């Protein structure tokens, strides 16, 4: 058994549970669409505000929808005391983290896949810069957010009011990724020069590296706590 086979087992389990229940993806996608719809009433799409509004709406919605999924993902483990079962199994905590991270990444990616076209259509948004770089920004922002979110969701689930604690823990730590992702998205939508968005892309990349490395050091202690 290798790191990847055990990581895959955990990823497979989360995916399978989601395919059966559709609890996480269903709820988060509906939440994201409702949020986008609400924003479309608050800001007039016809007023040419798309480039100003869309980046913020996109990432705020992704963050809050993602938070619902992150909390849910860890709550299922706590409900059956399955973290104890995982700790007693041959799986290392880092493998548990990696499996949960990949599953959360997939669920958040599904939210974005549904949300982004609807957002663009509602706000009549367009991307003046290279679309592939926008995809890269979406990927980098999501990886960073889900990486730290998975870690902090594990912390929050051990508390009694976990659903209240997770936003309090996660949102302050996610400020750099929020700024980087919104600024990069805005620059790409406006068709700014590569220097404008590359700065933010670099910030996102560094944030991702740090947030992916941190759980390798901390997740073991959080699970055992």
């Amino acid at each position, binding site marked *: 058994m290798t790191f990847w086979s055990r990581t895959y087992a955990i990823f497979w389990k989360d995916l399978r549970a989601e395919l*059966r229940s559709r609890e996480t993806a269903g709820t988060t996608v509906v939440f994201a669409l409702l949020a986008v719809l609400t924003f479309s009433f608050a800001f007039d799409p016809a007023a040419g505000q798309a480039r100003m509004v869309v980046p913020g709406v996109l990432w705020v919605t992704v963050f809050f929808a993602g938070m619902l999924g992150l909390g849910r993902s860890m709550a299922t483990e706590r409900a059956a005391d399955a973290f104890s079962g995982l700790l*007693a199994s*041959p799986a290392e905590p880092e493998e548990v983290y990696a499996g949960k991270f990949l599953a959360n990444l997939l669920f958040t990616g599904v939210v974005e896949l549904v949300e982004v076209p609807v957002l663009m259509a509602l706000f009549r948004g367009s991307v003046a810069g290279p679309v592939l770089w926008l995809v890269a920004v979406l990927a980098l922002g999501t990886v960073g957010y889900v990486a730290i979110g998975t870690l902090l969701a594990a912390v929050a689930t051990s508390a009694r009011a976990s659903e209240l604690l997770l936003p309090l823990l996660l949102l302050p730590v996610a400020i750099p990724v929020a700024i980087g992702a919104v600024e990069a998205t805005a620059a790409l939508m406006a068709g700014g020069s590569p220097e404008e968005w590359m700065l933010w892309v670099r910030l996102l990349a560094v944030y991702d590296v740090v947030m992916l490395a941190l759980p390798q050091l901390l997740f073991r202690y959080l699970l055992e706590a």
Partner: protein
Amino acid sequence: MILAEGVVKSFGGRPVLDGLDLTVEPGEAVALFGPNGAGKSTLVRALAGLTRIDRGRILIAGVPVDRSTPELRRRIGLLAHQGFLYDNLSAEENLHFWARLYGVPDREARIRALLRRVGLWAFASDPVRTYSRGMLQRLALARVLLHEPELYLLDEPFTGLDRSGVRLLREILAELVAARRTVVVVSHRPDEVVGICQRFCVLTEGRIRHELRSPQADGAVDGAALVRSLEELVERASASGVGGRRGA
């Protein structure tokens, strides 16, 4: 197989395990009794490496439990109060997941055989959330047997089982003992484990205060007398209050 020496564990300043010593030889089956709060479950979790002890040491197969490796953990099967089962998955999917994690070879056949053995084959595809308490316990038992560990740590495995379930579990335990697996089983009823285990320990105030051996081992008493003796000891410990602490 198990060496626990001077194990101390406190929760909120209250010692739950208070200098506990326990040695279990490979192939031995030991039953643990005691009143609520005596430290039985804490001991089982500590033996599985899930609860960090404050003092003392626990070795499993010669390895300190707090430094256990995936290979060592693969040799241990833990049945805790919660079955480590996922509500949204079926019985088959739950076992598939744990089988993958433990690297069980020939998963399909093993899972099929176990689900038949515990009487859940007809419900194999049903989500676990639709299961009764007894069915969950049967599935949790199948999960523990899945990877054929050398050491079984079973915390109140008879809970929720009906008569046929109790009979089945006794059969399985007898098979494990016959196969020279090491078994530590927590129980509240001596009659459930007499005839299977070789040694019976009564925990009170976080320590093993009484120890009896089975008639098969020394021929001193018959099974019924052993059950009576154990019931008296457990009764006396329970009468002392929670954890066997007077006035607790």
